């Protein structure tokens, strides 16, 4: 079993409560099986052969959004998300994953996106064939959530790329990075999907791969190297880093904006995993008139809507709705007019549950509107 590689985490977490109050699902869901301690108890029993992956235990192991706040808080270097991911791979190997999980996997394999929407509709909202070139210096990887659910983010990014006179292309056969598959426990399928996408990227021979999706960013930065998948030395940037660079180079110059207070929501992959905290704030600082109001829970301790891989909300829409509500409530306490994210999944979840007066924008939308 893969969980045996995480014995130290499992044995430490099973009797430890020290991260309960930061566990996103635990705080919202309120069940003892939601927090890393509960997961540790379950996994210890499985590890020692005192329990099997029954449907109840399997459900509990998919009731984690992988936000990573637990390991950020931990002073003992425990990594509950890694143990949970190993458990999911074990569950899949035993053919015990829930039907809802299997359905997402089928969608990804059949259509290249977790929603099961037709592949040919991926870029329908973005315009014509001039988006695709055989070779380019920059590949813009749009990602599933942006393409199908938040295409205005891609439109904004295209405007920025145009304003910077970038030599760029989209991938005509773009599909998921495979990350949702690996987060659901389908490691082999994830690798196959990743290899296919990597071949597409290499085919363009770009120098730079940029994406507006933090989950894709982490796939390229963390997962692909870990799987030994070669991107031919291409530099990988999230849009926040790329736009920050463009502004610094003077390649794009945002115009002055009407006075407003903005607050920025950090995320799991962009923030906690890759520490991209300063770039979004520098970008927002480049707009005269835009004042940044920080949430108490910011940077590495930022609240989460459960965005990793864009799959948690597909499995647990009610829970993720309440997680988004908590973020909105926290953001509203800053007195901000606009809540800015750099993640299409997060933006969609916030939009669905927004009962505040906050305007919601992706970072690149804010930049594009000022060009």
């Amino acid at each position, binding site marked *: 079993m893969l969980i045996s590689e995480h014995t130290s985490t499992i044995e430490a977490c099973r009797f430890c409560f020290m991260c309960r*109050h930061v566990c996103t699902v635990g705080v919202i869901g309120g069940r003892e099986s939601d927090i890393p301690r509960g997961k540790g108890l379950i996994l*210890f029993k499985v590890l020692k052969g005192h329990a099997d992956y029954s449907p109840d235990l399997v459900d509990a192991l998919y009731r984690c959004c992988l936000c990573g706040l637990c390991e950020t808080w931990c002073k003992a270097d425990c990594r509950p998300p890694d143990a949970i991911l190993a458990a999911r791979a074990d569950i899949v190997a035993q053919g015990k994953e829930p039907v809802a999980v299997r359905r997402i996997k089928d969608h990804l394999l059949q259509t290249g996106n977790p929603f099961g929407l037709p592949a040919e509709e991926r870029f329908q909202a973005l315009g014509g064939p001039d988006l695709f070139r055989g070779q380019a210096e920059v590949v813009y990887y749009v990602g599933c959530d942006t393409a199908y659910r938040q295409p205005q983010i891609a439109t904004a990014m295209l405007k920025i790329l145009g304003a910077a006179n970038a030599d760029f292309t989209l991938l005509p056969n773009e599909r998921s990075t495979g990350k949702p598959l690996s987060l659901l426990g389908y490691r082999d399928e994830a690798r196959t999907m990743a290899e296919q996408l990597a071949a597409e990227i290499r085919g363009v021979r770009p120098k730079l791969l940029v994406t507006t999706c933090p989950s894709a960013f982490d796939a390229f930065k963390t997962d692909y190297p870990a799987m030994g998948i070669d991107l031919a030395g291409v530099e990988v940037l999230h849009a926040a880093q790329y736009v920050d660079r463009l502004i610094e180079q003077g390649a794009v110059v945002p115009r002055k904006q009407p006075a407003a207070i903005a607050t920025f929501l950090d995320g799991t992959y962009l923030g906690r995993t890759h520490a991209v905290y300063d770039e979004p704030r520098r970008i927002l600082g480049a707009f005269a008139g835009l004042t940044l109001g920080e949430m108490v829970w910011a940077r590495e301790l930022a609240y989460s809507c459960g965005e990793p891989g864009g799959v948690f909300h597909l499995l647990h829409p009610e829970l993720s709705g309440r997680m988004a509500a908590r973020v909105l409530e926290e953001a509203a306490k800053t007195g901000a007019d606009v809540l800015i994210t750099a993640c299409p999944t997060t933006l969609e979840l916030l939009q669905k549950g927004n009962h505040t007066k906050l305007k919601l924008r992706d970072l690149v939308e804010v930049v594009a509107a000022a060009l």
Partner: protein
Amino acid sequence: MRVPTDSYLNEFLYTELADVVGPENVSTSQADKIAYSCDYYWIPELWIDRGRPSPEPDVVVHPRTAEEVSQICRIAANYKIPLTTWGGGSGSQGGALPIHGGIVLDTKKLNRILEIDKTSLTVTAETGIIMQHLEWELEREGFGTMHEPASIGCATLGGFLAHRGTGVLSTKYGKIEDMVMALEAVLADGTIINTLPVPRHASGPDLSQLFLGSEGTFGVMTKATLKIHPLPEVRRFHAFVFPDLHTGLEAGRQLMVRRLRPSVIRLYDEAETRRLIRRVLGIDKEGAYLVFGFDGDRDLVDLELSKALAICRSFPHEDLGPDLGQDWWDHRYDFFFPNHMFHLPQAFGTLDTVATFANIENVYRAMKQVVEEQFPMARYIGHFSHWYEWGCMLYARFIIDDPPQDAHEAAQLYNRVWDACLRAAMQQGGLLNEHHGIGLKLGRLMRELYGPAYTVLENIKRAIDPNNIMNPGKMGFQSR
């Protein structure tokens, strides 16, 4: 009585509970049964570790209002099944364990802050709120309850109320029972009661104090009003090492009997100074490490600090200065993460007790002697961490690095250490416990502690919970 697991009566119980709280707030999941079968008590941890079956709840419910709690109590009373209240489940005494199955009532969805009264400096909150969440919200408004235990992130307000918990700033701000203004509680028959709105009166005995420390055996506390305090302008610490524990105790006593108002005094014995202070804080000293702190307005803190320094410097000492005191404050919760905390396969227990200044050192030495002479396989360490005008609390611990592999043998050895140590403590004027509670762990010793007075508690229990459904088998009350 317990509804047999395979009985169709369970379906009726489930239906009635779901009708009250909604099906999403009722769980019979195996995952939850596992997660609610173990708290922070060593015996259930041992049972999990050894792969033995543990008592589990039949059903877990998550009420969102006192009215829902009331209806759940009525259902439990109707079926005459146990109802065990669970806050954070992080207690070390087995107090929240559903040892007879039945319903576990998880309070964590009773988590609203209802009012912050900035005129009277009080906060009213539901008892399922995680204490750290309450404290963080108060801090946004410039206040704090100043209840800051290591379990602040794990435990709920109700958990602290239920076992008379304490925090590291207790020496100035008191234990939780000193902070409470008033309570709302639900009785076993579903009646919702409120205690009087202020704690100082001459209108009969204090009902709030009756529920505080009752560990869910008298009812379910659902709401509490607590005192709050403005966040201090400054908080300053200072650390010393004294050549031995006796000198440190006398220095600490002087700080209190001279009626200074430190927010914290912590004195570690030689063994803990050598082991834990070195490992967690990196302070490599022989002797007894003492840290104290004052908080409040700058000029008042400076004045009290100068008097405290003069007292400490009147004893043989090494002055470690403010930084090594501040380090302790900054890392005060680190001691409880798995890399610093004792854990299985070790057996360990916190023998926290309290006594007057006249008795406390004798209590410490009596328990030490018991461990060293009767249990050579065990170590004994301790610190003194909550100080009063008349005495202080001893946080003594025993650690057995290599307990028997057999769960029965290990548990029996464990209980023998507890019994012998606490009987020795009681002979010297110590109590069974100071801030962790009694729970399942120490119930058998309650009659020895109270003597004939225990009958009063038993009679109250019988009167308030005639069906014995509220957390049966805890605090020494009748099991089932």
